[in-house]
């Protein structure tokens, strides 16, 4: 494999990310600026603060300055890694995000992996047995999941498994403020299962339908047809010429789904009171914790960008047709 090419690729991606982050933070800052919320007033709230602190806050938010100066000022702070202080948690935003994101990452990673494997398997099965009851089942399941709000599925699962069966806590068991460090591994795992399960069964739909239609598409291509003409058939034909050709696109798609994954996490964490980044985002939004909300927007942008870059990387460096081609420019 060509390492020089990969480094060049990563460098290019990093540059793109910087530009993207500047654009995203500018836009979100402006959105918050034009909102009725006053970040300094909200931060102070009922407290009495020293004049010195007030000056610091005014300086951080660039109060009384024109908008473009505010934006530049804010970007400068970001560049120094200063994302401000969270209003709710009273600690630096970077710390809150670090802790919350790692909890969410476990949740997202588990469901991402599970839904990917299961969805791919179901999609191949449905495409292989086209028109059979398995195919119809997978299709109906996927269409229904597509049309169902994630949070409602979460509510239903919460009712069945927590309220009726009592297998899992009904949420709200951990008050806001108790950090993930204070919980034991078993406790944490106990709380992870239901949210991860919810996200997995909803994530399956997209990848299953995609895999199915891709397999159907591949089965109509010349090489699949020729393999059939040569006497290959059944599962071994699917394995040799089907899966080989749809695995890459499917993995790529799964990496491209980071945005929906993050969105689903926000809703699921809210229902199950899972102390992750999604719950933090909602709380931050509802209580006008502007620094935290903006910080979460940035981390979600980086997260989605990483997924897209992984997809690109796979496309460019795994597929032999593109890997070996001379004119491999980004």
């Amino acid at each position, binding site marked *: 494999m060509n390492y020089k090419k990969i480094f060049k690729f990563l460098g290019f991606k990093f540059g793109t990310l910087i530009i993207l982050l500047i654009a995203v933070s500018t836009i979100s800052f402006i959105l918050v600026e034009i909102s009725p919320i006053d970040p300094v007033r909200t931060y102070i709230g009922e407290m009495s603060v020293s004049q010195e602190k007030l000056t610091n806050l005014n300086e951080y938010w660039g109060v009384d300055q024109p908008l473009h100066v505010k934006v530049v000022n804010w970007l400068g702070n970001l560049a120094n890694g200063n994302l401000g202080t969270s209003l709710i948690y009273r600690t630096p935003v970077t710390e809150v995000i670090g802790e919350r994101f790692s909890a969410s990452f476990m949740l997202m990673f588990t469901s991402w992996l599970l839904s990917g494997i299961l969805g791919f398997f179901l999609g191949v099965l449905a495409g292989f047995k086209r028109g059979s009851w398995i195919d119809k089942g997978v299709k109906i399941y996927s269409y229904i999941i597509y049309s169902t709000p994630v949070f409602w599925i979460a509510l239903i699962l919460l009712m069945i498994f927590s309220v009726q069966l009592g297998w899992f806590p009904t949420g709200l068991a951990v008050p806001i403020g108790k950090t993930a460090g204070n919980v034991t591994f078993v406790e944490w795992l106990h709380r992870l299962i239901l949210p991860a399960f919810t996200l997995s069964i909803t994530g399956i739909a997209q990848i299953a339908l995609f895999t199915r239609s891709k397999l159907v598409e591949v089965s109509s291509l010349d090489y699949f047809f020729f393999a059939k*003409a*040569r006497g290959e*058939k059944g599962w*071994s034909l699917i394995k040799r*010429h089907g899966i080989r050709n749809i695995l890459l696109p499917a993995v790529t798609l799964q990496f491209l789904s980071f945005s929906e994954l993050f969105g689903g996490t926000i809703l699921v964490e809210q229902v199950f009171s899972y102390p992750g980044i999604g719950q933090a985002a909602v709380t931050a939004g509802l209580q006008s914790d502007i620094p935290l909300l903006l910080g979460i927007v940035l981390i979600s942008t980086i997260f989605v960008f990483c997924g897209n870059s992984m997809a690109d990387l796979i496309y460019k460096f795994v*597929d*032999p*047709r593109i890997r070996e081609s001379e004119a491999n420019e980004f």
Partner: protein
Amino acid sequence: MSKNRNNSDDDIIEVPKTLLNVSNISISFFQYTQGLRKTVLNVVEDLDLDVHEGEIVAILGSSGSGKSLLAHAILGILPGNSLLKGEMIYDGKILDQKLKEELRGDEISLIPQSVDSLDPLMKVGGQVIGDIEDEKEREEKRKEMIKIFKNYDLREDVIDLYPFQLSGGMARRVLFSTSMINDPKLIIADEPTPGLDEKSLEETLNYLKIMANEGKGVILITHDIQAAVKVSDKIAIFYSGYVIEINETKNFSGNGDKLLHPYTRALYKALPQNGFQLFEGTQPMNIDIQDKCIYYDRCSQSVEKCGHSNPDLVEVDDGIKIRCHVVRKI
């Protein structure tokens, strides 16, 4: 049909065994057009054909006229929305779907038209050898493959290349190797010479000749009358889904007065070396019209009868057949 089966039972050495006997084959499709209106498309009608051992039979028709479907019908790989009627007998046995599946890739093999018939993500070796589980058998096939590669001027290291690394000519020769790996008795070459230069054309036709000399039956499906004349023993002329004439290739010579059908004669006269006489009109695409001869609108020799009945294909001499009301003997 019974006539040929009797032939194969005879022990007369001079008469080559009939390998394939196709009678009365018709193929049709149904599909949806704009606004979801269902239409039925008849593509091949009332097709008769015999292929003997060591014989090359060319099926000559314009591109896109559906003649490739005959190949798919023999191999049993027509798409799901098609309907096949008629009878095929292979080596004395009725060639039904079960037998087709058993024989395809084995005793009956296909040389496909497109070089896209190679799986883009599988190395050449794996594709030529085919789907073989048994380790020892695979090793034998590998040796066989190397031998065949030599015959087709392919180096051994081609085995480890991906199809995109092959030149067009190499890919074509790989396809030929693929068809020969299981030592078939009947080979269907589906348009194997599209857009080839003079030298490659000669080479390709030569390969077919060698196959026939080894005693294999070859069906050459082509739109190139020169290629057909050069290499085949018998030519079936395909017009608008009907075979209108089956004649011996040696009759495609001189001023063509041994050719029977007006269309065949016109076609022959249109060849550069025969004066390049162009003829008017195009083939009707819709072959539903059955109340007149399909060539009626273009025919210069038509009589009153041709306008209200479509003639049957009748045998006028041993193996020579004609579908015409006017010309009924040599």
